[in-house]
């Protein structure tokens, strides 16, 4: 042990520490300064724990406290508070650089160290200084802008008040600071791992070392005797169904007699410390009887293959789609292209690990189980947990969520934490490592797609065939939904009279697939948009003109046969055209050296609000004439808080501070469905507008304008708004039926450089033209596009999740400031949609659907080789170039 003195946030402190204690642990667990976050298992990969030590930005997870005697440490809590923020915190909030907020404190502290030494850094200096800080939400664009703005503030060139939007500017189309942003910028927003629970048991889970095996025995005797262990639980200790049910009830909370996937949970250990729990979990002995391992659909579909689930065939779902006569159209076509495409399994990669805490309020059979976790649909997740755990009396609270991107549509740590709290009858903390979080979460489904695309002599599309197989992994979760969404948006932005498709979903022993930004359309759009360029080439038509010629117009139908009444797309081509001409000229000027430049396009029309979707929102008039909105509209970073607050303020002519949001607890909120599918603005925003319309009607009828007036007139002060989309499931035989109620349209253009010797690709710029309807918060819209395209580029070029091998942010190839690129967002068209929320749609997922095909088309344009299987790694490009000769 060693005694050290530190000055932390200006206060002199003394500690006696062991040789292994790191500064992050001391700050978070010793001093409860939880602004510094942990994402990367203390490997120094993420920068979320960055603090300033003796004037330098340091990753506190790597610093031994024993080596810091006499040092001065500043954490994000030492910079400012929401009432008195530091100028850097103001700059991050006003620039829209705060989305989920998990990386924000580390980014802010790295910025502090940079600007203290260099008050006017340029873009490259900023990228270098913040190169060790990862962000999944922003694509780094707004963070770089925030650092520059902070520099201007600190140099006295401008003040925050000069940048902050004036409330008099109105609420629609104005980027008012997000209600939650300053709490995140000050490190005070509590994520699950930040929640302090007195006398909590730390949880660790013994997980399967096998991909597929029968469990012969589970021996917990040694673990139970280990130091600090409170107890060990297995499936027999769970009182409910022990099954998590989305579509099928095929996923156990804890495995009973069989494991189907590496990392399946088998036993839960509770102990005084996390280290004790982890040590004991390793001592749980599981004897296995191996079963054949099927890691691909081909293996799972082979004759005589073992079923992954006895109750279901491995080919668990198949859905044809037939519109027109594609076969005849192909026979009669002037040009046909045919190819097989594949996309990889990918991790959604939120920075925050899958943390959850749980405890009981009260005792005995009337005790209330409180789960605080990472859900984006607290009501349905609570219902699933009630059944799985056999405990009805529950409350689910959403903590602040460190990124989402679909991953939090599935249940993970909350089932374990809830079960453990009930079993041990103690408060529990389950804070899995990054590696464990990767093992236990659902992933983006890999697709293989056999495609034919045909056109007539005039260059009009006539037929599209896409037979695709989805690797579902070991559990259903949302596989069928992903397949359905792929079919509903199969024809993208185009009018294609002949459609022939077959979607097949196959159980394997791979990681379970689940929701992932876009969920289905990014995979099939990669195939369609690649084939569009191939067919344009075949016909000798410019890719932009070919797409323009084939865009759907109102009165025509999508792949489900649903006829579209509105499709405001055509103008986007005109918006993009000058950028496209500029990019082509610049690319041509580079010539055919080792490094070549290319331009690629792709577009998509992303569906918003599926048939049968429904949302409810409650709005109450408050005694001070403000309003409180009650709705379980999770906001893991997209800006749903801005949307709800600004719409209510706009419609009721209120200042934003008089709009209160209650969105995080099942005990107070309406059930509004998931914060997924790009549906919150359209569905929940729509229900909010409906509730406010009712409130205004009641006030008009009573001829009053405030709370007291409503009370005097004996009118209600609480109004429930609803938004419903008519039902219309696809026909099981033909895949025909209704589709999403609205669409958001966009085109993306990639400009890339390809090194023909190394196969390395550098994305120089992404340009996107988008018509999302009237924009409520321009900064949030841009931030979604910038972050989505950054994820799309990662998906196109680098990222791949290999179960058991991808263990951290390095092996995942997480996008960094170094790989970031210029972005230009073009939004001159904001066509109000007939049924949109004040005309608006949603944009969260559309942002990455077109990116991968645009990048791959640009690679082809640059060097002549086409990549059919994502990601387009340097090795694949080099091999293709070599094969081309």
């Amino acid at each position, binding site marked *: 042990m060693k005694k050290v003195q530190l000055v932390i946030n200006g206060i002199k402190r003394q500690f006696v520490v062991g040789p292994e204690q790191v500064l992050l642990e001391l700050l978070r667990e010793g001093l409860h300064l939880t602004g510094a976050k942990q994402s990367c298992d203390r490997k120094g990969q993420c920068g979320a724990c960055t603090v300033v030590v003796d004037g330098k930005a340091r990753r506190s997870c790597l610093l031994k406290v024993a080596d810091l005697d006499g040092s001065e440490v500043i954490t994000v809590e030492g910079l400012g508070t929401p009432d008195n923020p530091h100028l850097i915190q103001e700059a991050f909030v006003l620039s829209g650089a705060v989305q989920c907020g998990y990386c924000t404190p580390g980014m802010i502290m790295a910025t502090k160290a940079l600007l203290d030494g260099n008050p006017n850094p340029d873009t490259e200096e900023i990228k270098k200084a913040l190169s060790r800080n990862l962000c999944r939400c922003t694509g780094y664009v707004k963070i770089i802008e925030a650092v520059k703005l902070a520099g201007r503030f600190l140099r006295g060139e401008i003040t925050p008040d000069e940048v902050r939007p004036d409330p008099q500017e109105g609420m629609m189309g104005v980027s008012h600071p997000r209600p939650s942003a300053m709490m995140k910028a000050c490190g005070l927003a509590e994520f699950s791992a930040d929640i302090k629970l007195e006398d909590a048991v730390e949880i660790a889970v013994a997980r399967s070392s096998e991909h597929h095996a029968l469990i012969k025995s589970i021996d917990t005797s040694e673990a139970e005797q280990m130091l600090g262990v409170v107890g060990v639980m297995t499936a027999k200790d769970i009182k409910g169904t022990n099954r998590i049910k*989305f*579509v*099928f009830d095929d996923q156990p909370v804890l495995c009973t007699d069989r494991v189907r996937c590496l990392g399946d949970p088998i036993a839960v250990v509770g102990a005084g410390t996390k280290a004790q729990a982890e040590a004991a979990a390793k001592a749980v002995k599981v004897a296995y009887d191996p079963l054949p391992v099927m890691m691909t659909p081909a293996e*799972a*579909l*082979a004759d*005589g*293959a*073992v*079923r992954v689930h*006895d109750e*279901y*065939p*491995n*080919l*668990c*779902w*198949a*859905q044809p789609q037939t519109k027109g006569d594609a076969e005849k159209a192909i026979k009669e076509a002037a040009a046909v292209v045919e190819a097989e495409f594949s996309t990889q399994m990918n991790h959604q990669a939120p920075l925050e690990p899958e943390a959850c805490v749980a405890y009981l309020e009260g005792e005995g059979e*009337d005790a209330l189980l409180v789960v605080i976790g990472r859900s984006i*649909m607290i*009501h*349905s*997740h609570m*219902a*699933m947990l009630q059944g799985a755990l056999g405990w*009805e*009396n*529950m409350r689910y609270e959403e903590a602040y969520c460190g990124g989402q991107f679909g991953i939090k*549509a599935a249940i993970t740590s909350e089932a374990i934490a809830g079960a453990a709290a009930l079993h041990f009858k103690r408060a529990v903390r389950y804070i899995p490592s990054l590696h464990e979080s990767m093992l236990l979460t659902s992933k983006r489904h890999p697709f293989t797609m056999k495609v034919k695309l045909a056109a007539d002599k005039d260059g009009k599309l006539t037929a599209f065939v896409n037979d695709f197989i989805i690797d579902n992994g070991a559990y259903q979760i949302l596989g*069928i*939904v992903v397949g359905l969404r792929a079919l509903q948006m199969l024809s993208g932005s185009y009018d294609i009279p002949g459609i022939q498709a077959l979607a*097949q*979903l196959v159980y394997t022993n791979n990681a379970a697939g689940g929701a992932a930004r876009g969920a289905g359309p990014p995979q099939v759009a990669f195939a369609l948009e690649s084939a569009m360029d191939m067919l344009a080439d075949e016909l000798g038509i410019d890719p932009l003109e070919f797409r323009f010629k084939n865009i759907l117009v109102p009165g025509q139908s999508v792949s489900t046969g649903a006829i579209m009444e509105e499709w405001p797309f055509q103008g986007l081509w005109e918006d993009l055209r000058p950028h496209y001409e500029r990019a082509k000229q610049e690319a041509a000027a580079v010539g055919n050296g080792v490094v070549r430049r290319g331009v690629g396009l792709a577009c998509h029309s992303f569906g918003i609000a*599926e048939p*049968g*979707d*429904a*949302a*409810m*929102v*409650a709005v109450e008039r408050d005694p001070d004439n403000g309003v409180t909105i*009650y*709705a379980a509209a999770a906001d893991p970073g997209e800006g749903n808080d801005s949307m709800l607050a600004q719409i209510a303020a706009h419609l009721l002519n209120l200042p934003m501070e008089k709009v209160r949001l209650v969105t995080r607890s*099942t005990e107070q909120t*309406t*059930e*509004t*469905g*998931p914060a*997924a*599918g790009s549906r919150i603005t359209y569905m929940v925003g729509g229900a909010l507008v409906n509730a406010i319309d009712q409130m205004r009607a009641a006030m008009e009828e009573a001829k009053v304008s405030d709370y007291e007036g409503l009370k005097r007139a004996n009118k209600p002060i*609480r109004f*429930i708004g609803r938004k*419903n989309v008519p*039902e219309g*499931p*696809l*026909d*099981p035989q033909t895949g025909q039926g209704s589709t999403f109620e609205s669409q958001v349209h966009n085109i993306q253009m990639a400009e890339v450089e390809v090194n023909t010797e190394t196969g390395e690709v550098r994305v120089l710029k992404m340009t996107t033209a988008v018509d999302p309807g009237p924009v409520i918060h321009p900064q949030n819209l841009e931030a979604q596009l910038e972050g989505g395209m950054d994820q799309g580029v990662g998906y196109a070029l680098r990222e791949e999740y290999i179960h058991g091998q991808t263990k951290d942010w390095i092996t995942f190839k997480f996008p960094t400031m170094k790989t970031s690129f210029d972005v230009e967002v073009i939004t001159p068209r904001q066509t109000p949609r007939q049924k949109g929320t004040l005309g608006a749609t949603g944009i969260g997922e559309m942002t990455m659907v077109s990116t991968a095909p645009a990048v791959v088309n640009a690679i082809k344009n640059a060097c002549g080789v086409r990549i059919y299987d994502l990601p387009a790694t340097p090795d694949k490009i080099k091999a293709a170039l070599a094969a081309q000769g």
Partner: protein
Amino acid sequence: MTGSGESGPLSGHPNRRIRRIAGRRIVFDGEDFLRNPEDWSEEVALCLAREDGLQELEEKQWQVIRFMRSYYFHHGRAPMNRDLKAGVHMTLMALEALFPGGIRRGARRVAGLPNPKSCAG
């Protein structure tokens, strides 16, 4: 345990079932709950109750149904058992016994309250 067994793959949306009930075409979810609570009527409730083996609904059962629907449309969510217990002044045991499927599978389904929406619809 073979992948090509006698039962073939599913197709369509497993969480949507269109049924003709009380003379109307109504969409149910995979657990046979109404998708839209506004599709409910007393006639629909009687049909669902009969599926559960109740030939008629007694006043106590209507009291539970009315409370559940009133709670749902005021709060925007279904009542927890504790809310129901307090609202209708019955014990949980009595409530569970009142409908053959118990509170959730019985009373809540007959009352036409939908399951919370998830990404699976």
